[in-house]
C-alpha cells in the first residue's frame, strides 16, 4: 500500500454554524480517480476547496503528502476583459517553459490556440486550456471542479477519457466534481455521493443501487445508471417515492446508521 496523497479526517466546514461539509473522511492515492457527485448545495466545491487549502476547516484535518504539486481546474475561468491576455501568456504564468506549455496544450487538444486571445475561446476550449495549465505543472494531484462544463456531449466523453489517460501518464491522483453521472459512472474508479455528509461511496456499479444514492438522485436516474446491475429491491408508492421492501430494510438502516438526517 503506497502513501496516500490526500487524507481527510472528519473534515467539517460550517458557515454560520450550518455545516456545509459534515465529517467527511477520504483517502486518495496515486492513480486513483475519485469523483464527487451530489445535488446543488451539497458542499462539493467547498470540500474541494478544503482539500486545496483555500477553504478554512471548522474541524477535522486535511493531510497532504509532501512534496505535492497540485494542478487545479477551477469551475469558472471568469476573465476580466479589460486584461489583455493570450493563451501563451496565460500558460507562461504557470512558470513553466514554453516547450512544457506547448506540450500540455497539445495533450489537451488546444495546441493550435497558443497565439489566441483568451477572451475569444469557447467554453470547451477554456476548460481544455485550464486543464493544460494544470497539466503543465506536472501535478501529483489533479483537482477538477466540473471539468466538462460548457463542453458538448461528444466533447464530454473525450474529456473524461483524457483525464483518465492523464492519470495513467502522470500517475497522479485525481479528484473531481461532476454532474455528468452517466459519464462519471463509466470513467471513474470510485464515487463519493455528497450531501453535506458522505451519503454513500464506492464503485460505480455498486453505488447506483445503493438506497442512499437512489434517494438523493431519484429512482429514474439511478435506474438508468444501473442498467447492468439493477435489482429491484424496493417498490414505489403512488407519489413515486421509494418504499423500501422487506428485504432491503436492513440495508437502508445500515448505510444510514450514522447520518442522523432525513432523506426525502
Amino acid at each position, binding site marked *: 500500500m503506497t502513501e496516500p496523497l490526500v487524507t481527510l479526517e472528519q473534515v467539517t466546514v460550517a458557515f454560520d454554524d450550518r455545516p456545509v461539509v459534515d465529517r467527511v473522511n477520504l483517502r486518495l492515492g496515486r492513480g486513483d480517480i475519485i469523483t464527487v457527485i451530489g445535488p446543488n448545495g451539497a458542499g462539493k466545491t467547498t470540500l474541494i*476547496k478544503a482539500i*486545496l*487549502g*483555500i477553504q478554512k476547516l471548522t474541524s477535522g484535518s486535511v493531510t497532504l503528502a509532501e512534496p505535492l504539486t*497540485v494542478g*487545479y481546474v*477551477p469551475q469558472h*475561468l471568469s*476573465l*476580466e*476583459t*479589460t*486584461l*489583455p*491576455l*493570450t493563451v501563451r*501568456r*496565460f500558460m507562461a*504564468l*504557470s*512558470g513553466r517553459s514554453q516547450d512544457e506549455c506547448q506540450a500540455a496544450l497539445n495533450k489537451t487538444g488546444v495546441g493550435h490556440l497558443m497565439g489566441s*486571445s483568451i*477572451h475569444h475561446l469557447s467554453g470547451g476550449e477554456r476548460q481544455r486550456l485550464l486543464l493544460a*495549465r494544470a497539466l503543465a*505543472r506536472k501535478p501529483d494531484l489533479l*483537482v477538477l471542479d466540473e471539468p466538462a462544463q460548457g463542453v458538448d456531449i461528444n466533447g464530454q466523453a473525450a474529456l473524461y477519457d483524457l483525464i483518465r489517460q492523464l492519470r495513467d501518464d502522470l500517475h497522479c491522483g485525481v479528484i473531481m466534481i461532476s454532474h455528468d453521472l452517466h459519464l462519471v459512472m463509466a470513467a471513474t474508479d470510485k464515487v463519493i455521493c455528497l450531501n453535506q455528509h458522505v451519503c454513500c461511496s464506492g464503485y460505480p456499479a455498486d453505488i447506483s443501487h445503493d438506497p442512499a444514492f437512489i434517494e438523493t438522485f431519484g429512482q429514474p436516474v439511478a435506474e438508468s445508471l444501473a442498467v447492468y446491475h439493477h435489482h429491484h429491491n424496493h417498490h414505489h408508492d403512488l407519489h413515486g417515492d421509494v418504499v423500501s421492501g422487506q428485504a432491503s430494510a436492513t440495508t437502508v438502516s445500515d448505510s444510514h446508521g450514522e447520518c442522523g438526517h432525513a432523506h426525502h
Partner: protein
Amino acid sequence: MPIIDAVLDDFFWRALIGGLGVALVAGPLGCFVVWRRMAYFGDTLAHSALMGIALSFLISVPLNVGVIITCVVLAVALVLFSRSRALATDTLLGILAHSALAIGLVTLSFMPDVRVDLTGLLFGDLLAMSRDDLLWIYGGAVVILALLAALWRGLLMSTIHEELARVEGIPVERLRLVLMLMFSLVIAVAMKIVGVLLITALLIIPAATARRLAHSPEHMTFLAMAFGFVSVGGGLTLSWHLDTPAGPSVVVTAFCVFLLIYGGARQTRS
C-alpha cells in the same frame, strides 16, 4: 549643475517633472485598478487623503507621511470590513469615502492657525510642487516600480484568478496588502499635482485608454504610462497658458486622449 538648478527653480518645470514622475507609476497601478475593478476603492483612499492632511497638522508630521498612514489604515480597515459582508462593498466604500473627506474638512476648519489651500488640495496646484515633493515623487516611483517588477508574476496571476494563484502557492493576501501600500504611496505623491478628488481619474483614464490598443498586460502598462505622460504634459501646459486649475486640466487632457483613441482606433482587442 546650473542648468538643472535653473530648471528646478522654475515652478512650471518642477510641476511637469513631478507630474511625469506620478504618471510613471499611475500607469501600471492604474492598470491594476482597472483589472481588479478597484476604481471606487481608489477613490475612497484618495478621499481619505484629506483626513490624512488634517491628521498631519494635528500630530505635526510631514503631510505625505500623514496621508500614507491614513490611506494604509483605511485600506486595511476596508479589507477587513468587506470580509464581514454586513454591507455591500460599494455602500461601504461610499460611506467611508465621503465620511473621510468630511471628517478631513471639518477637522481642518477647527484649526484656524493652519493655512491650507483647500482648492489646491482638492484639485491640484501647479505652484505647490517643491523640490522636496520631487524627491518624494521619484523616491516613491523607484520603490513602486521595483516592487512591481519583483512581484509582477504573482500580482498578475492573483489578478487573473485568485484561487488558482492561491493553489499555486502565490501569497495572494500579502500581495493585496502590498498593492494597497503602493496605492497609498501614489495617492500621497499625486495629491499635489491633480488633487485628491481627481487622482482616480489619473489612474484609470490612461489605463482604460491603453486597453484599446494593448495586446498583453505589459503592453497595456507601458501604454498607460505613455498616455499618462501625454495627459500630464498637455494638462499642465494648458494650465500654465490658460491659467486653468492643474488637476482638472490634466484630467480633461486624459479624457480627450481617451475619446481620440476610442473614436479613432481600429478595434484590436486581444
